[in-house]
């Protein structure tokens, strides 16, 4: 079947098998390999992207379900000027990543959280990231990064 998805502002149109997962459209067709697959049960969140601005697990959606819609991956997060998005910047400043495999999904989930809740508490952040697993950081610095990004955007 033919699907047309706007990915990071550009059109991706392709003939794909009906069962093609959105994550495989992104990785294999669009060539955007930052979005990773870490499980097969929608548990880990490594594949988290934004679909029309809200976070979704792209291993759990068919490419067909994204037809005609907007997808943002971590590659599309910074504006292209070379500057990092505030969430990316905060992950770097707070050492919120180690091996980097969960990171694109973790960053997108965090962006989605801050869009819904611009000034979260630590508990809010931990709760919002429950669906994103990290095996390296113990979440300590990820939580600090998200809180730092929030306070950066909300100067008191």
């Amino acid at each position: 079947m033919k699907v047309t998805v706007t990915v990071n502002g550009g059109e991706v149109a392709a003939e794909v098998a009906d069962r093609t997962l959105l994550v495989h459209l992104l990785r294999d067709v669009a060539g955007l390999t930052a979005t990773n697959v870490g499980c097969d049960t929608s548990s880990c969140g490594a594949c988290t992207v934004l679909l029309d601005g809200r976070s979704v697990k792209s291993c759990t959606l068919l490419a067909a379900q994204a037809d005609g819609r907007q997808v943002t991956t971590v590659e599309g997060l910074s504006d292209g000027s070379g500057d990092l998005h505030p969430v990316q910047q905060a992950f770097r400043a707070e050492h919120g990543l180690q091996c980097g495999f969960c990171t694109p999904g973790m960053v997108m989930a965090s962006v989605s959280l801050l869009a819904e809740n611009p000034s979260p508490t630590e508990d809010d952040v931990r709760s919002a990231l429950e669906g994103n697993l990290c095996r390296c950081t113990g979440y300590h610095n990820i939580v600090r990064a998200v809180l730092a990004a929030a306070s950066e955007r909300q100067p008191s």
Partner: protein
Amino acid sequence: MVRTEDPRLLTVGGTYVDDLREPALEQAARVTFVRSPIAHALITGIDVSAAREAPGVVAVLTAADLDDLPPPPPDSGLTGTEGLPFPLGGAWSEPLFAVDRVRFVGEPVAMVITDDRYQGEDAAELVSVDYEQLPAVVGVAGALAGESLLFPSAGSNVAVATGTPADSAAFEACDVVVEHVITNQRLAPVPLEGRAAAAQWADGKLTLWVSTQNAQIARFILVGALGLDPANIRVVAPDVGGGFGAKIGVDRDGLLVAWAAKHIGRALRWAETRSENMLAMTHGRAQRQVVKIGGTREGRILAYRLDLVQDTGAYSRMGGFLPFLTCLMAAGPYDIGHVETAYQVVVTNATPISAYRGAGRPEATAAIERAVDLFAAEIGVDAAEVRRINLVPADKFPYTSGSGATYDTGEYVAGLDKVLAGAGYPELRAEQARRRERGDVLQLGIGVASYVEITAADADGGETARLIVHDDGTATVYTGSSAHGQGHHTAWAMLVQAELGIDMSKVTVIHGDTDLIPMGVGTYASRSLQLGGVAVHKAAVEVKEQGRKVAAEMLEASEADLELDVDRGVWQVRGDPATSTSWAQVAAHAGDAGLAADVNYTEGKPTFPFGTHLAVTEVDTETGKARLIRHVTVDDAGTVLSPVLAEGQRHGGIAQGVAQALLEEMVYDAEGNPVTGTLVDYAIITATELPSFELLASETPATINPLGAKGIGEAGTIGATPATQNSVIDAVSHLGIRHIDMPLTPARVWAAISEARESR
């Protein structure tokens, strides 16, 4: 400090094996394994004809196709008792594809190669394997019963047995002796990136891209398995999404991908699914321990015995190495006059066991730290006080423990006291007393665990570094060490900057490519900084002396009069900054002779980091739910190069340690079927189940290396697991509960509470 690795990882993502878009892999076919769905069975037939006809199928391969391999090495006769980290040969040997018998659910039986990934999943289902089921050997008890044998020609399920004889006199002299059986449960490592490999055979050379902690070890294994000359193998470790010990070298699945690419002459890609990963990547821990501890009523420990059985799964990939390390570290940080250890390694119909963050040491610490708490409870002395009484005093180092390890340096009591002060121990005990007095539903538990561990246990294996300073003022480091999240690229650049004054941003670090770095060991056993880092440091020192000679010639001064201004990265005549020359100029002047150093640094001895963890949990006595609310630690790993990176290692390890204590366990049913084979069933710890951690600083330098460094990678799992377990048991100890096995799930804790209340 920010990491040099991160901008790429945060914007376009890392390049993990499945992300590779190398031209060599453009036409690569996909590998899908067919795995045994049965724990123990004879294979009576394999029919691949239907699979071969399926859409997109390039080949279907089984053991019958393994006709181009070298003969297996002769039986070395080693039983594994020697503590060698090598798989056992002879009767115990492990094939690549299962031949006539499967021994665990997930064992590779066949391989389907297809043009695309979805076709592989379809075709794999068409491979028909006839199994004649055999009784499964489940767990240590099943193995020791010996009613069913995994390796009939071996005549037993016990692959290794060794130990010191029991000496009852030492315990008879004690006022109090406590004995307990403890389970250190089987865990799945679960790096977020599972195993993955891509392979190409071209012009007589094999290239294997593999998610590994050690490209050079992987090549060494390939040489043996495929019978190729090392010069004809290139192994590349691209970005690696976590390893935790389970990606040391390359295992049989990766070897099969490499072999198949050569066998069929087409480039291949393989990236396992998580469900495969849970079953076929090695697991860790899996010991049944019997602890016996004795001492005086005042709290002095006089005798300790650890008897353990290591469930090594279906194949003994590590020989006796893990329980050997457990027994070596059995006495922990305590000055105990009499220590006995003994272990057996048994095979069971489960996933093979190998290293998992800590690899034998968390098991040792879990055993002694539970034993100390049991002893403290028995004599009615505060558990922290019992530790203070028995910790090796600072004036006794170097100290050889009762179990035979020689600890280099330590301030064990100071570490304990710092944690108790940082946590506010007396106030925590007072709050606990108030809640008990009130009969609160939420009871407070305080768990303490002190530890000493061994890092760079194979220090004599060493590590390599090559450093070159180029005539544009930049530098390149080729390291035999291998990063998979630890931040080596940042740390090695820091070392070069510190010694040479070349800014970190100008230092490129390259690892994990055997064409560029033929010799190296890689990353495991918390060895990187103290071996690989020291190698980089020594290379920098060597290059500095080369630079001094060249600069002296350029500045027409004597070498003794020259100094390196590390802040500016320039050479100058002492006290005369106007006469300076830069590294770029020095390198250009050095010409073809260049500024370069090759170092292969070996160390005769390992190092012994230590620390204390204190966990505070709230236990809901109506539901059994335990929640960690604080975690305070000292983890002293000698001189710290980068506090940010070192703390990151501690954080991650603590989370994995808490996870073992509270949540994680690979469970098998009576037929040997895994029942926790997905991330839905296997409880990886999430952000909601952890607090932020309270890390306290402590640096007692190592004296055997110039950086003063010990290893930090595994401290978290070693200290956090028993601290958390002890805290949950402490929360309900007033009910008469002395022990609950890990993981301390609500069901287990609730059952223990119910049983304790009924027996009152």
